[in-house]
C-alpha cells in the first residue's frame, strides 16, 4: 500500500516553507548568547501568524514551530476532516528550554521552588497538545521521543496507523528547539558544534510536518517504510544502514539515490555520505525537514531512499516515489 504525501510544512532557520523566500533569508550562524555556543535559530517573526493563539502564550519555541508547520501541512485539507485526524508528534528533547528554566530554582533553592506556569510545558507531549488544540484535532495524538532518527520513525508509525485501517490520514510533525544546556550535552557527545571553530554542524531548531493520506499524494508517495534495531557501536553502522537500504529498494529501482542523516559520531562509518540539505543538526526535526526540502526541490527525483541513523543508534528509512513534472 502506498501512502500519499498530501501536504508539507517547514519552519527552519531559513524561515517558513520551502523553497525559502530570499527576502526572509537570515545569516546562517548566530551565537546563542550563552557561553557563546553556536546555534542556528529560527528568525523572529517566522511564526507571527500563530503567536496570538492563546494556548501559545506561555509555550516554548518548540510548540510555536510545531503549530506553524502543522497549520501549513493541512492548509489544503477539508477542515471538516480535521477532528478525525490523528497526530504523530516526534521530538528529541521536547520543551527543553522550559525544563531548564523550571529546574534551575529547584536545583538551587529546593524542591518547593518550581513554577506552576512552566512545568506543564516541560511535558513531552505539550507541543502535540497545542497542535491538536489549534487545529481542533480530537483523534489520538501520540508523541514519540527518540534520537535524531525519530522523525522518520514517526512517519513509519503514521504509515502503520493508516495501513492498519485505523485512519485514512495522519499528520506527522517533528520539532526541536535550541537550548544552551542541551547544546552543551550534545557538543560534549560529538553530535554538534560546541564552538564556532568546530567542524561539526551547529545545533539548530525548527519543525517539519507531513500530511499523509491513504490515497496517492499530489507530489509524492511513500512506497515502503521500516525501522531498524538500535546499533551498539560504530562497527555496526555500515551493516545496519546497508541492510535498511536493501530492505527498502525495489527490483525496479535497485540503485536509487539516498538521502541520509548520520550524525557526528557515526558519520565516518556510514556507507552513505551524510546529506545536509538544511544547515545545522536539528535532531528530531532534521529528517522530516530533509524530506520537505526534497519534495520542494526544483528537480524532483523519481525514486529516493531516505535513511536515518540517530545518535543513539536508532534507525529508520523509507522509499519515496515522486511525481515528476511533465516535460
Amino acid at each position, binding site marked *: 500500500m502506498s501512502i500519499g504525501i498530501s501536504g508539507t510544512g517547514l519552519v527552519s532557520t531559513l524561515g517558513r516553507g520551502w523553497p525559502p523566500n530570499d527576502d526572509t533569508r537570515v545569516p546562517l550562524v548566530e551565537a546563542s548568547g550563552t557561553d557563546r555556543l553556536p546555534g542556528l535559530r529560527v528568525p523572529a517573526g517566522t511564526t507571527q501568524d500563530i503567536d496570538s493563539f492563546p494556548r501559545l502564550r506561555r509555550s516554548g519555541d518548540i510548540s510555536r514551530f510545531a503549530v506553524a508547520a502543522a497549520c501549513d501541512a493541512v492548509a489544503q485539507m477539508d477542515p471538516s476532516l480535521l477532528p478525525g485526524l490523528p497526530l504523530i508528534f516526534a521530538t528529541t528533547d521536547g520543551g527543553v528550554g522550559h525544563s531548564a528554566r523550571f529546574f534551575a530554582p529547584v536545583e538551587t533553592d529546593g*524542591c518547593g521552588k518550581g513554577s506552576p506556569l512552566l512545568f506543564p*510545558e516541560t*511535558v513531552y507531549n505539550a507541543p502535540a*497538545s497545542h497542535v491538536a488544540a489549534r487545529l481542533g484535532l480530537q483523534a489520538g495524538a501520540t508523541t*514519540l*521521543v527518540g534520537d535524531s532518527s525519530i522523525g522518520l520513525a514517526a512517519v513509519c508509525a503514521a504509515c502503520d496507523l493508516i495501513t492498519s485501517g485505523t485512519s485514512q490520514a495522519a499528520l506527522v510533525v517533528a520539532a526541536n528547539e535550541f537550548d544552551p544546556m542541551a547544546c552543551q550535552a550534545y557538543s560534549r*557527545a560529538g553530535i554538534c558544534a560546541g564552538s564556532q571553530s568546530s567542524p561539526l554542524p551547529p545545533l539548530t531548531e525548527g519543525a517539519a510536518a507531513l500530511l499523509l493520506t491513504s490515497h496517492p499524494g499530489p507530489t509524492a508517495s511513500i512506497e515502503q517504510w521500516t525501522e531498524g534495531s538500535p546499533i551498539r557501536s560504530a562497527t555496526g553502522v555500515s551493516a545496519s544502514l546497508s541492510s535498511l537500504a536493501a530492505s527498502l529498494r525495489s527490483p525496479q529501482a535497485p540503485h536509487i539515490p539516498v538521502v541520509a542523516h548520520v550524525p557526528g559520531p557515526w558519520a565516518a562509518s556510514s556507507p552513505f555520505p551524510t546529506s545536509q540539505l538544511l544547515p545545522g543538526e536539528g535532531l528530531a526535526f532534521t529528517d522530516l525537514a530533509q524530506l520537505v526540502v526534497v519534495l520542494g526541490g526544483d528537480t524532483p527525483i523519481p525514486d529516493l531512499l531516505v535513511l536515518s541513523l540517530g545518535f543513539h543508534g536508532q534507525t529508520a528509512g523509507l522509499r519515496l516515489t515522486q511525481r515528476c513534472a511533465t516535460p
Partner: protein
Amino acid sequence: MTPQPVALASAGCLSAIGFGMRETSDNLRAGISGVGPVKLFDPAGCRCSTAAEVDSSRLTEAARSIHRPAARWSRAAQMVLVSMAEALDGSPGFVPEMVIVGTTSGAMDWGEDFFAAVSRGQGLDQANRRVGFYPPQMPVIQALHALGCQAPVRIVSNACASGTNALGMAWQLVRSGRAKKVLAGGYDALSRLVFAGFDCLQASTPELCRPFDANRSGLVLGEGAAMFCVTTGGPVRLTGYGAATDTHHLTQPHPSGSGPLAAMRAALDAAGSPAIDYVNAHGTATPQNDACEALAIMEACPNAPVSSTKAATGHTLGAAGAIEAAFCLSALMDGFLPPTLNFRSPDPSHSLDIVANSSRPAAPRAVISNSFGFGGANASIVLEKP
C-alpha cells in the same frame, strides 16, 4: 484486512507494592500500600512529602542478578530490565519485532545531575558520562542489549496515558498483521523535577491519596515498570483500544468527561462492546480528574465495579497504564477486583460502585483500563479472558 487476534502472552511488573507478577498480585489483593516518606531526595519545601518508591537496594540487586553491569545503571534502566526480563522469561522463544514503551521522563535523575554539574561547574566527568543515558529511549535500549534482543524501539510519551498508548500501538500492529510479536509496556522513575512539578501545581497531596472519595485532595507519585509480550495468542486477550484528545486545557480535562468517554467508547467499540465486569480507573484522586472520569464511567460502564489502584502504587505516570494493565491481568487470572485504598466518604456527585479498601472476590471476564494525561491524552484498553 482480516483483523488478527491480539493477546498478552506474559507480563513482568514491578512497583512499590511488589517485584514480579506473583508478589504484585498477592500484595494487590491484600491491599498493601507502597506509599511512604520520600527517601530518594529531599522534598523540603514541598507541600507533599510522600511517594510510592521502589526499594533501591532490592532493585539494584534484581538488576544485577540479570546483568551484572546493570548495578551501575540508572534506576529507570534497572526497572525496565527487571520487568522486561520477567515478561520475556514468561514467553520462551519470544523474539520481538518491535518494542513500544511509554514513559514521561526517561532517566530524568541523570539529566538533573548533568544540569546541576554544568550549573555548578563541578562533577562534570560523571555527569558527561551519564547524560547520554538520560533520554527516554536509552533505558529501553540498554535493557534490550543486555537481554540479547534486537528490535526497533518506539518510545511513547503521552504523559500519564503513555503506557496504555504503548499497549494500544502494539495492539494496532499485531491486529493489522504488520507485526506478530511486540514487546510493550511502560516505565517511570521518580525524579526531583517531576516531583516538584506536580507539587507546585498542587496536584499532589500532603494527605493520603483517596481516589473517588468525597474528600480527595490529590495524588501521590510512584514509580515502576511493566512489560508485556503481545502476540496473537495468550491467556488474556487485548481486544480493544481507544484514544482521544481533549483540547480543553493543557493540564485540566474538560469537566464533561468527553475526552475519557471518547477513549472508553472507542476501546469498547473495537472490542465488540463486551459486558464490562471491572473498570480499572485512572483515578488520580485530584478533584477534577476523578469527577470527569466518574461521568465517563457512568456513561460507558454504569454498572461495573470500579477501583483506582493509585492509592497503593502512587501515580506511576508513564508506567501507570502498563502497571494497571498488569493489575487487570491479575484480576482476570487470579479472580479478584483490586481495592481502592483510603476510601472513606462516598462522593455524592457520582454513583460508582467503588471497590473500597479491600479486594473483592470475583470472576471477571472483561475489564477496561483507563489512562488520562496532561495534554488531553486519553486512552483505554479492554482485556478479556477467552
